[in-house]
């Protein structure tokens, strides 16, 4: 059942099912994303989480921060965990053996939503196989990547989501290195190419955009991928209070474009249309430099010998923005 959320005041009527006194860093975006996702629905939610900050900080025995059923198995299997819970749910539903309270919800048209949360490490890297498999099989669940572009939980090592020039503990900037050498992997397109009915990129700072996308995702049947920008005060090295500002800079510089890809299928499951919609257009597109300057993980790029990386960044962001706009225009 789609929850009515016209504005923020209405949204604030939500009763959080994610609890305080968890052990996430002050100012952590992961938490903001989790709240916004869970509060996007009043239907029951069941969560699977990959090893990573969110997991090690919200289920440390003897405390749980979850008011929904939750499972963590390992680092690389959040997708299959959520997918199989979904399959188990469907089998029990078919057999008429759901627990009574759950059956009651189902009868009221409030089917449980099954959501996986995983970091970029658990998604772009080690969990990619499990994610790809679960999407190919078409299970009905939502996968949310908390993308802080680094292995935060283990002390800030690079992932294939780490953008070029970032200094991480395994791609440190040094006298002969500007830090990470590779561009970020384009996960959103990769997941859309799996034929998923709905794929989107979001930022917690644009809460309404995020909530709307999550609601759309909950409405379709099949695997849904949400790539969520997650500013990490510890590894991006900005002050905790700047989390929302840094996120906004990412969105307004088009480093983190907000868009969705919808694969529409006919009754045989054949995709007859793929549409990309840009869901947020900055009034004025700010220079990438401002985004980089807000995060000490890029500080070294401002040295004369590394300035070319900032130029490269701008070029790459412009090209990508251009690409997205072209796709949107072409309706593909």
């Amino acid at each position: 059942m789609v929850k009515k959320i016209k504005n923020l005041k209405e949204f604030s009527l939500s009763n959080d099912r994610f609890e305080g006194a968890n052990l996430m860093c002050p100012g952590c975006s992961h938490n903001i994303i989790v709240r916004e996702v869970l509060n996007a629905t009043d239907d029951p939610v069941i969560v699977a989480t990959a090893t990573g900050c969110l997991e090690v900080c919200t289920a440390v025995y003897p405390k749980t921060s979850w008011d929904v059923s939750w499972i963590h198995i390992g680092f690389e299997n959040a997708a299959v965990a959520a997918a199989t819970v979904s399959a188990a749910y469907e089998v029990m539903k078919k057999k008429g053996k759901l627990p009574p309270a759950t059956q009651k919800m189902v009868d009221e048209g409030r089917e449980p939503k099954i959501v996986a949360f995983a970091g970029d490490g658990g998604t772009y890297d080690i969990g990619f196989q499990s994610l790809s498999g679960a999407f190919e099989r078409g299970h009905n669940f939502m996968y949310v990547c908390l993308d802080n572009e680094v292995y935060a939980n283990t002390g800030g090592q690079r992932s294939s989501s780490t953008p070029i020039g970032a200094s991480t503990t395994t791609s440190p900037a040094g006298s002969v290195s500007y830090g990470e050498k590779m561009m970020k992997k384009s996960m959103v397109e990769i997941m859309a190419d799996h034929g998923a009915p709905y794929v989107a990129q979001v930022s917690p700072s644009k809460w309404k955009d995020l909530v709307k996308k999550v609601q759309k995702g909950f409405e379709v049947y099949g695997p849904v991928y949400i790539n969520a920008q997650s500013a990490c005060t510890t590894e991006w090295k900005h002050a905790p209070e700047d989390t929302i500002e840094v996120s906004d800079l990412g969105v307004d510089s088009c480093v983190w474009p907000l868009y969705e890809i919808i694969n529409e299928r006919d009754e045989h499951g054949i995709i007859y249309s793929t549409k990309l919609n840009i869901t947020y257009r900055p009034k004025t597109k700010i220079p990438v430099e401002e985004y980089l300057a807000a995060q000490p993980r890029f500080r070294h790029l401002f040295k004369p010998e590394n300035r070319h990386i900032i130029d490269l960044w701008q070029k790459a962001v412009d090209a990508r923005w251009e690409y997205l706009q072209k796709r949107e225009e072409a309706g593909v």
Partner: protein
Amino acid sequence: MAKKYELNEVEVWDGNMAAAHALRQAQVDILAAYPITPSTPIVQNYSKFLADGYVDGEFIMVESEHSAMSGCVAASAAGVRAATATSSQGFALMVEVLYQASGMRLPIVLTVVNRALAAPLNVNGDHSDMYLGRDAGWINLCSYNPQEAYDLTLMAFKIGEDLNVRLPVMVHQDGFICSHTAQNVKPMQDEEAAEFIGEFKPVNSMLDVSNPVTHGVQTEEDWHFEHKARQHHDLMNSVETIKKVFKEFEDRTGRKYDMVYTYKMDDADVAIFALGTTVESAQIAADQMREKGIKAGVVSLRVLRPFPFNEIADVLGNVKAIGVMDRSAPGGTFGAMFNEISAALLARGKSPVVLNYIYGLGGRDTTIEMLKGVYEDLAKSAEAGEAVVPLQQFVGLRGPKLAFY
């Protein structure tokens, strides 16, 4: 409703078909699996049962064994019956999740068709995979033929799902020699099997949205030890349930299972200890030795974990010499079974001669002649009251004799 499968009183099934029928009769809710020789036919057979309307649950053919076991863990935590099958490399890929399954106390059933581990790659039977998983906190049941593979797979559900146990269970059978060799099997009828296993009893089901539960927590130095202790305690104590289920099964079928399997051990002077299909070959060798006047017996484990420490010391304590057959490359020490059996004997104050034989790796034929050779060694050592051959020997191997100690 799943269709009833019409079964004859005696079917001719190989080990894979036997295991597949047991999984079908258990009406597993989620079977998540990935094919690998020699266990592939289990999932193929199961898929066919599903395609023909004999299964109500779902078969998910995942993209790896890691996901197969992860899927089983998630399904089991969701409160449904989950099972899978694998061998060798697939088993190795599952190892991480095997520990998660047992640590989370989920009664998953895994049918393992034992096969060698690469490198070099090899598709044939040995016990490398079984040994790899032996400390993973699972109950391990061992079969020697298709009938037992069937029986033990049925019993695995009942044992693991018992509210005093709640642990995952592996059922081992030898690759090819058991899995691909058709023999007579007496199955239960579907209703009887279902009644024997009983309905799955969910514990802390994630699907009950009114009782949110957190599965798979983090525990650090202040809690991990206690949880592992609890797990070990419950695994050790599962013996009671295992024996109870064995008894109930015997009452229904007349087929008797014990923690330790023995053959002609009452008066034996020398004994071969082995696992898997070698147990049956060793019995033939023992009979032939007895014709020559050597009192030979055979001992095996029906339950590898929890290890029947006392029973093993009891049945082997009074023989003069024991040949422990380990079908897995020992990797720089004695075979694992040699170590465990020697420890049980020593700790119980028994001191027969114990010899270790590494054999049958990668499916190398285990001949009666070879086993008789082992008995000869044992007989000589028994007579001398000490080992007259090296303590560890590779048998059935080409090239110069390989032996240590």
